[in-house]
């Protein structure tokens, strides 16, 4: 059950990928039914697996592996591992994937590379499931990169656009930077513990082994592995790729850049959680906080519907990371799950809007208006009821309004950070967390209101807008349902009593006692003691944010422009995404350009020059000896005669053609040798 089923789940999307890449174009309807069907089958199997696993109410971990390769005396095995975490994640991935497959049937209709698109979706699903299922950090790295490449391929799906291929490159390269750290972390672990499996690594650590015998290296290993998560989950300072990744088709954004792949970083941190030291966790928590704050501020200022969602994704991922950092493990992971549902919903909803806008613009033969700019929308509520209502649910969920799933998870996170700060005084974390909660509610409703309410920016466009077809709205409805509280906990105000909390428990830390966070022993008590305060605070702040958005954008009581002016450089900074792109361009892109140009010059001029220089130097010697010949030797020979006209020539200069000169040399050498011999 736990050996074969996961493997089938893993391999089905791969099979879909292979079939689609080779035969996609030859199948009827270009094979979309095949891909979607196989994905749906995977979903069913995953659900079966989840129910069996969680239903068994045991924390048991199933692993099975085989020997991949033997190097020297070390055996490297690959295998799968099923625990509750993985089982839940499986369903999340397959569910969103299936819905996205379904959604795409309409959204991508008529695309030139339709079957290729489905193939890549299959490849992505396979890789993502690989990340979820693996028992082994190396294999995780493998799939990690594979999701990277499928993300690359999908972002660059419309590669004719320069911006799309740029975004694809950026995504991959920025991720590589993170992976670089992760790779080094993996190397540290393998060199120290001779194994890649989580189990073996944790066992070694708990047995008191430290990498290179140093606690610092253990922290370093943790932080380096976390670098992978920083890249993939778009955490500060590597968050810059995600907004650009919106160049991909919107369903892709929903699947990869909102629900699953970007959450893989969180999953990774959750996976390696037992080996993280207190210092590493602190780093993680602060990185998460910074990310959450930065992204939220930027989100306020954006007008591209997908960009707003992208920054909100970054911000929410920051939340999750922060939660893990402070030790609110379950809350962080739960937020991952809930966020997957409502953020995928938001993106698909946005996709639905964009699809409609496109259709309308297409009818108007308008190719200049940006279909994704919310300033071109407005008043869509009437035209697209299903999209509107589902979108509202998603917005409420992300804003953390009670009765939604988002409230449940976010509330726990806030409680966790607050509890954390009460124990060791890192008050910055809850401060950021609550600020971001308010900001989230504000900018999400800003988006929602501008898009759906109010006056249409252009009546003509609005007139052409129609509700999306069923294949698109059904996924929205499913996701909307999943964004409500009861799927996670029957108590709408506390998740801790739900099945989720019992299924996912924070694993025990394996690091030496001294390195464990001081907060752990008393953490849960602290959480329960601050829980109510946190909940109240969070509701107040969320509602305040929503209210403010209403004031500004619905009622127009407060002028958005004035607010922006008041904020001054803060606004300017946020609009320009805090200049991260510019800075990276200056430093890294230009820097590497300078280096590469310099090295190229160096290579072609110096290194090659030295080689060619061997000839030059020979020539130099030649001319020097030629000069000596002409001016000294010949001068000697000819007494007084000027020899300036005898230019050029090497040793051939001695070869004057005059036999007496030759004899002179011979006898001269003879005399010299003679003297030497005396």
């Amino acid at each position, binding site marked *: 059950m736990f050996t074969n089923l996961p493997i089938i789940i893993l391999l089905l999307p791969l099979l879909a990928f292979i079939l689609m890449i080779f035969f996609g174009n030859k199948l009827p309807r270009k094979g979309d039914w095949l891909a979607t069907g196989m994905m749906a089958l995977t979903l069913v199997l995953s659900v079966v697996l989840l129910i069996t696993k969680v239903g068994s109410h045991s924390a048991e971990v199933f692993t099975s592996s085989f020997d991949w390769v033997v190097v020297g005396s070390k055996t490297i095995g690959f295998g799968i591992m099923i625990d509750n975490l993985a089982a839940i994640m499986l369903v999340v991935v397959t569910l969103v994937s299936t819905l996205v497959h379904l959604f795409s049937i309409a959204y991508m209709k008529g695309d030139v590379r339709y079957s290729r698109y489905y193939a890549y979706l299959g490849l992505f699903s396979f890789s993502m499931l690989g990340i979820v299922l693996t028992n082994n950090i190396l294999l995780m790295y493998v799939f990690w990169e594979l999701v990277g490449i499928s993300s690359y391929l999908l972002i660059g799906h419309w590669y004719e656009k320069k911006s799309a291929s740029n975004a694809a490159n950026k995504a991959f390269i920025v991720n590589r930077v993170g992976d670089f750290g992760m790779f080094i972390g993996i190397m540290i672990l393998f060199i120290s513990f001779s194994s890649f499996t989580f189990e073996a690594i944790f066992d070694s650590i708990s047995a008191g082994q430290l990498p290179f015998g140093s606690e610092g290296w253990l922290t370093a290993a943790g932080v380096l592995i976390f670098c992978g998560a920083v890249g993939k989950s778009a955490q500060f300072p590597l968050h810059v790729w995600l907004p650009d990744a919106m160049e991909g088709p919107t369903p892709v954004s929903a699947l990869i850049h909102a629900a699953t792949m970007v959450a893989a970083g969180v999953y990774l941190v959750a996976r390696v959680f037992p080996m993280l030291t207190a210092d590493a966790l602190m780093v993680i928590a602060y990185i998460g906080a910074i990310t959450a704050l930065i992204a939220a501020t930027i989100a306020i200022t954006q007008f591209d519907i997908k960009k707003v969602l992208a920054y909100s994704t970054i911000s929410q991922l920051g939340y999750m990371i922060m939660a893990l950092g402070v030790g609110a493990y379950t809350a962080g992971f739960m937020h991952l799950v809930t966020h997957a549902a409502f953020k995928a919903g938001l993106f698909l909803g946005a996709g639905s809007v964009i699809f409609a806008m496109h259709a309308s613009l297409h009818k108007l033969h308008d190719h200049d208006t940006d279909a994704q700019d919310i300033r071109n929308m407005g008043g869509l509520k009437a035209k697209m009821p299903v999209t509107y209502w589902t979108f509202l649910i998603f917005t409420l969920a992300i804003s953390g309004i009670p009765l939604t799933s988002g409230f449940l998870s976010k509330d726990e996170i806030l409680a966790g950070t607050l509890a954390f700060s009460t124990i060791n005084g890192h008050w910055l974390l809850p401060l950021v967390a609550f600020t971001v909660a308010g900001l989230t509610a504000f900018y999400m409703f800003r988006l929602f209101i501008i898009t759906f309410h109010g006056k249409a920016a252009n009546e003509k466009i609005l007139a052409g807008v129609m509700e999306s077809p069923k294949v698109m709205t059904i996924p929205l409805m499913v996701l909307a349902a999943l964004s409500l509280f009861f799927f996670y906990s029957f108590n709408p105000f506390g998740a801790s009593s739900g099945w989720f909390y019992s299924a996912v428990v924070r694993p025990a830390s394996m690091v030496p006692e001294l390195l464990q966070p001081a907060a752990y022993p008393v953490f849960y008590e602290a959480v329960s003691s601050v829980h109510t305060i946190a909940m109240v605070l969070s509701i107040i702040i969320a509602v305040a944010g929503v209210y403010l958005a209403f004031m500004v954008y619905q009622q127009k009581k407060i002028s958005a422009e004035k607010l922006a002016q008041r904020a001054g450089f803060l606004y300017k900074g946020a609009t320009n995404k805090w200049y991260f792109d510019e800075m990276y361009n200056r430093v890294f892109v230009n820097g590497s350009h300078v280096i590469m140009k310099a090295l190229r010059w160096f290579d072609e001029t110096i290194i090659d020059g030295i080689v060619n220089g061997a000839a030059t130097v020979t020539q130099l010697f030649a001319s020097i000896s030629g000069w000596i010949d002409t001016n000294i030797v010949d001068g000697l020979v000819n007494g007084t005669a000027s020899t300036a006209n005898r230019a050029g*020539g*090497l040793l051939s200069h001695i070869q004057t*053609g005059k*036999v007496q000169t030759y004899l002179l040399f*011979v006898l001269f050498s003879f005399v010299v040798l003679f003297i030497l011999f005396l």
Partner: protein
Amino acid sequence: MVENTLHSISLYLPEIVLVVTLCVIIVADLVLKNQKHASAWIMLGGLATAGIFVMLQAGTVESIFFGMAAVDPFATFFKVLLIFTGIFVVLFSMKNRELEGYSSRMGEYYMLFSGMMLGMLMMVGATNLLLMFLALEIASISSYVLAGFTKRSLRSSEAAMKYIIYGAVSSGVMLYGISLLIGVTAATDINAINEAIAAGVEQTMMLNISVLMILVGLGFKIAVVPFHFWAPDVYEGAPITIAALLAVASKIAAFAMLIRLFSVSFIDASGLSTTGTWSSVEGIHWGLLLGGMAALAMIVGNLAALRQDNIKRMLAYSSIAHAGYILMGLVIMSSEGLTSIMIYLFIYLFMNLGAFYVAMLFMNKAGTESIEEYKGLGHRAPLAGAALTIFLVSLTGLPPTGGFVAKLYIFGAAISGGWIWLAAIAGITTIISLFYYIRVVRNMYFFKPDEDAGRIEFDISSKVILFALLVPVLLTGLYFQPVLEFARNSMLMFGF
């Protein structure tokens, strides 16, 4: 005394055959006026007969004519090489267009040729300073005239004149050196000289001076720096067949003489060690002297060759450089070194003659000696082009050609003898040599021939000669054991 003389004559048959050949050619020249190649065939017959007699002497170790000359495997080895060279050069001469304008004089050509062969054969066997000098002069005087054989050509005349002046002065100096050596040791036989020196000669300065002066003469013959100046001019001016003869046969004979003279006269017979190295007579530093000359020859020869456009001139400088490599084997003062010299010369014979031969074919057909004008010849004459490439590659010393084996042994001997710096110079100059050898190859292949320039065809006999040169070059590159053993056995005459 008479018996001794008669016995000696029976061991001197190869040389006598050559004298007879000379005489027969004189007669034939008078009788057979209209036979184009009559003299050549007689010469070939003579050389072949001489060769047979040389072979028959294999293994004999005897001193003949009252110690004047020796018949031993060492001499046999070199005589074989010389006769090979002679035969090839006769064949070249029959093919050479250059000589065709002088058909009425071909009799004289072959007379002098056999005279030169005789001189060289005598050089190889001579063990007496007088006979050495005499043999050297016989070879030299014939070659002076041969270098100027194409006398209508200004260049050829000039070459002959330069050659004889240079040669006369050099042999004069050498003679002076010989006179001093004889004076110091009161002996003319090289073994007696060695005995005298071994018995203790106090006048080491005099000995050194005489060695130096003798080296001037032999250095001239070998064309080694700083006594090489004549070589490029003479090779360029002389008919190509004679240039080939000078570059190969002359050098072989002179090396044989040099080796015999030095390694018999100036080594400390009591200092022979079991490791096969010897030491020179106390006070005479000829090892270092020759080492310096070898290094200079390698450097100067290879560097100067870089600038040459005339292929004969280029080959002249290359032969100077090769003289340097060969000399390295002597410097080491071990039987290893001598063996390697012999192997080198054996292979050098084929590859250098080959290069000269193809140059001659190209001159016959394309009428040029200029490397610049070799452009596209590789396409026009694929076989000859490929052959020249192989010869040049072999001269560079790349496997799987004989040249590689030759270099391998010389370098190996140098390293085993501890002359690392010399080996290093040899290595570096080998790299330099690549530039000018490969330039020829490049010109032949990397340029398209002119549209109207047709394919160059050669007759069967030309091809046969070409293959006769090519096969040993390639064969020795892969399987050189027979040569090695031949050379090694030929060393036995020195008793070590």
